[in-house]
């Protein structure tokens, strides 16, 4: 039984469709992350679940109840806005208590609930302050406190960390993960940051232009991206793509041809997912962290361009004929000479193949 269910939901602004019939199910207690480039409709979809955005077609159900035409307040969901949306003229206490007051909860119970939320988020000493007297991280905590105090069935987060600096972002990411573990509540989290998606999600929903590209666990999306878009979006540093052609196809091997490959060809020892014909264009995907320099059996012959020292790793950028830039993430510090020949091997992982339509093959 799914806890949250989207059934072919559509959103149109006027006549312009923004969400094109999205169907999705989430189990109780699951942490679902919507990820995708800016403008792909993540917020719109989230706000449709919250009820803040009218649903043009399709249905949303929460906990077995169709809520498509239920008022936002009666859906028992809480939302943390990207802007936090704290009420600037109210104290932290009143901000957190607002929803409870609206629900006409007795004052002594409100105090108990606010104290509970404040202690979970360690904002007890801030309760009498106004939002403008708080730092960005503290405002973020208050916004989360306001969400948890109502004991909702479903938490919605819309890019809650995007206004924080890198260090706070990493810290709050851990706290949100901990919160999810401790509360055990279903959460839907929107981000355009694939690191947040990978680290927080039980399941990731990759969106593009109002459509789902793929749904799966972080490792599924990483290991078996359904298409080139997902492959390029999930994983950091980004996957390298080489536009090659199919050379020959045998029962259990595909030979690819491109000038960057050693000897002009590369043989992948597996059967294609679908029948392919020799000469067809194919996109070859190689993850930078799977590539290694100085391997005894190199697959790529590249020309070194420049490198970035990342401390424990070195990111090396190289080029080849018809391949403008290929990144390699190497362990340790490597000094490279610009223009030198760089034999690159595949240390781990796999060679990803995508057909002309970008579908994995």
């Amino acid at each position: 039984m799914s806890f949250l269910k989207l059934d072919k939901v559509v959103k149109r602004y006027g006549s312009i469709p923004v969400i094109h019939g999205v169907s999705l199910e989430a189990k109780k207690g699951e942490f679902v992350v919507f990820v995708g480039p800016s403008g792909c409709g993540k917020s719109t979809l989230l706000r449709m679940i919250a009820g803040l955005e009218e649903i043009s077609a399709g249905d949303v159900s929460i906990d077995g109840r169709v809520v498509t035409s239920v008022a936002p307040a009666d859906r028992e969901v809480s939302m943390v806005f990207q802007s936090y949306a704290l009420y600037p003229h109210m104290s932290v206490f009143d901000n957190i208590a607002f929803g409870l007051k609206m629900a006409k909860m007795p004052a002594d119970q409100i105090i108990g609930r606010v104290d509970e939320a404040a202690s979970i988020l360690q904002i007890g000493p801030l309760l009498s302050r106004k939002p403008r007297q708080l730092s960005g991280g503290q405002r973020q905590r208050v916004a989360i406190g306001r969400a948890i105090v109502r004991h909702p069935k479903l938490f919605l987060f819309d890019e809650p960390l995007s206004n924080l600096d890198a260090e706070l972002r990493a810290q709050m990411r851990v706290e949100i993960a901990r919160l999810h573990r401790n509360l055990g509540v279903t959460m839907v989290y929107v981000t355009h940051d694939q690191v947040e998606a990978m680290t927080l999600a039980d399941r990731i929903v990759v969106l593009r232009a109002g459509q789902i590209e793929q749904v799966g666990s972080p490792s599924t999306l990483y290991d078996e991206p359904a298409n080139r878009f997902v492959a390029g979006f999930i994983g950091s540093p980004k996957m390298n793509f080489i536009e090659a052609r199919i050379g020959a196809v045998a029962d259990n091997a595909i030979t690819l041809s491109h000038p960057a490959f050693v000897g002009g060809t590369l043989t992948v020892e597996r059967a294609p997912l679908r029948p392919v014909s020799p000469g067809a264009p194919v996109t070859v995907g190689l993850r930078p962290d799977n590539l290694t320099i100085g391997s005894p059996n190199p697959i790529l012959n590249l020309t070194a361009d420049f490198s970035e020292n990342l401390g424990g790793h070195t990111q090396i950028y190289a080029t080849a004929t018809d391949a403008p830039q290929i990144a390699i993430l190497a362990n340790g510090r490597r000094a490279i000479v610009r223009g030198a020949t760089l034999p690159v091997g595949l240390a781990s992982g796999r060679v990803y193949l995508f057909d002309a339509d970008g579908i994995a093959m």
Partner: protein
Amino acid sequence: MAATRIGSLLHALGLLIVLAFALFPFYWMVTSSLKDQTELLASPPVWFFHPTLSNYMDIFADTKVTTAVLNSLIVAVSTTLLSVILGTPAAYALARFEFRGKADLWFWFISNRMISPIVLALPVYLLSRQVGLLNTRLVLVLIYLTFNLPIVVWICTDQFRSIPPDLEQSARLEGASQFDIFWRIYLPLGLPGVAVSAIFAFIFSWNELLYALVLITSQGLKTAPVVATNFMSGYELPWGKIMATGTVIVLPVTVFAMLVSRHMIRGLTMGATK
């Protein structure tokens, strides 16, 4: 360093000149109200004199003046309250809702202020006579409301538009009704705009002379500006009394503006977002 100091000195000097220019009439009015008739008419004017409250005693002994001030207070306070009570919900609707005819309504509000009041004086007079509202305080309240509402709606719409829409959505999600949202979020956060428009409404209603002169003829209902001009009839010009009445007229507006201006702090919405 030296350049910026000279710059700020010049700046202060400029401000002083403007301030003196603005305040001198007030200074002259207040000091004149404290002079007796001989000092008042002295030429060249006397700068040092023995202040006397006799002008004030005279005008307050005259029930005409006290009744007029009371009438003005009743009319101005009612108008201001009604303008704010009726104008702010309208402003909220215009700021945050899409509805048919919104643009036309908006234009109508603005165009109300494009008409010179005197153009309407005669029609309004005839209309009020027909419906039997001549010589009532109500007719003044209604007329002033017509002139004040556009300003209140205008200023408050602008103010409400600057409130982040996320606040309203968050409140809605937390179970706030439409009225709660208006009352607990828009009004308190829009207070600077509400205060400014209330001051405008009060000053306009308090000072208005034309309609008060035309629509009210019975002595007991006249407002303060009308009574002040009444001194200027006959053969003498009692400057001291005129100035004292003027001072009494200016005082409530000043007090009101000072009380309300506390709420005109900027940056009230700071800390809502980011």
